[in-house]
């Protein structure tokens, strides 16, 4: 366990899409969306690219850390899809920031940020890097079917970033994966080839909501208990659990089962929607900015999603 968080940043698109606006596009209501998901509005990219969002979040995190882009030894971005298949999002962030270090992307869907923290920890532990920028960036609103009322209401766009340096902030981390392409999927599209006979996949987000909910709650609870036990902490030690912002009802089950108070569970789903791997760093930066999290606080992050993947960690800020 080798890093501490020395700076956080976030970036969201300008356009705010309210439930009222969504109900003009598909047959739904503000009331239905609010009670079923906890979402009131979400940020939706119009002109902003995922690179714009990721670079802006990274820049702010560096500023808060009081570091220069040239101080970075590694840039990792997590995303389900960057602007290009190549170059990676991380390489374009490196270019935008003026950094000189290696850069690569990872994809663990909604758990991508926690997976990235694990990689950063390994690099820093081994002495291969001293300063790492980890960015979770997603433009999920471009992966949904805007005629499907069950899914298009759920998502938003944004990017959140942390700068990590050698330290003892990370107390425990745990990842899982359980390969499955039936419960949650987004298909990639490829160029036509005279030889290719592979099935063409649907590029729209598809999910078996009930089963994914069951996975999310089960994995989230198990992962959180695992990292709490590894870190030797109890619920009373936790200032806040930051769950992946997928659905308010997942938070409620986690809160009840872990015996946490309302204040101990971070919720920003009302104004972000589900931003996949950007959701945890977006929340973290917002909570620090609001003064609700301060240095010394113990937080637990828990993420779950496509893959199926999950991951949790305990960090002392």
């Amino acid at each position, binding site marked *: 366990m080798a890093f501490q968080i020395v700076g956080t940043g976030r970036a969201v698109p300008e356009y705010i899409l309210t439930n009222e606006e969504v109900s003009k596009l598909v047959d739904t209501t503000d009331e239905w969306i609010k009670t079923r998901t906890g979402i009131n509005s979400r940020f939706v990219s119009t002109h902003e690219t995922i690179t714009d969002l990721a670079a802006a979040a990274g820049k702010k995190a560096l500023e808060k850390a009081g570091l220069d882009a040239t101080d970075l030894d590694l840039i990792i971005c997590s995303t389900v899809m960057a602007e290009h298949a190549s170059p990676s999002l991380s390489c374009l962030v490196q270019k935008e920031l003026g950094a000189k270090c290696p850069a690569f992307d990872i994809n663990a869907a909604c758990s991508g940020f926690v997976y990235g923290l694990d990689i950063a920890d390994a690099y820093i532990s081994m002495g291969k890097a001293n300063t790492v920028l980890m960015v979770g960036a997603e433009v999920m609103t471009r992966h949904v079917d805007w005629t499907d009322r069950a899914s298009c209401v759920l998502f938003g766009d944004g990017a959140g970033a942390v700068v990590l340096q050698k330290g003892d902030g990370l107390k425990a981390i745990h990842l899982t994966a359980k390969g499955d392409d039936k419960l949650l999927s987004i298909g990639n599209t490829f160029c036509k080839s005279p030889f290719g006979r592979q099935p063409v996949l649907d590029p729209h987000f598809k999910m078996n909501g009930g089963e994914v909910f069951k996975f999310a709650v089960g994995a989230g609870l198990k992962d959180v208990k695992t990292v709490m036990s590894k870190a030797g902490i109890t619920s009373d030690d936790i200032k806040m659990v930051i769950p992946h912002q997928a659905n308010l*009802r997942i938070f409620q089950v986690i809160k009840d089962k872990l015996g946490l108070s309302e204040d101990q569970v971070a919720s920003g789903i009302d104004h972000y929607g589900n931003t996949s791997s950007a959701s945890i760093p977006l929340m973290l930066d917002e909570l620090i900015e609001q003064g609700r999290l301060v240095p010394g606080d113990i937080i637990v992050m828990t993420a779950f999603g496509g893959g199926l993947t999950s991951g949790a960690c305990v960090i002392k800020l």
Partner: protein
Amino acid sequence: MTLEKIAKIIAETRDMDATDIKRETSFEEMELDSLDVVEVIMAIEEEFNITIEGADDLKSVGELVDLVESLK
């Protein structure tokens, strides 16, 4: 007995009166959506110490009771 226990679990999830929940009551009548059903199933799994699969097609309390009975 199974019906009473399941009715109690559903009543707690949906904040309603357990005595209003009969065998013939449908999930739709109780306004249980897919996530509510999963919450109920998880609570039942814990209560009866069983693993429930194939709950997607269930429509009523009676069907759920029969499935749980068959797994006990």
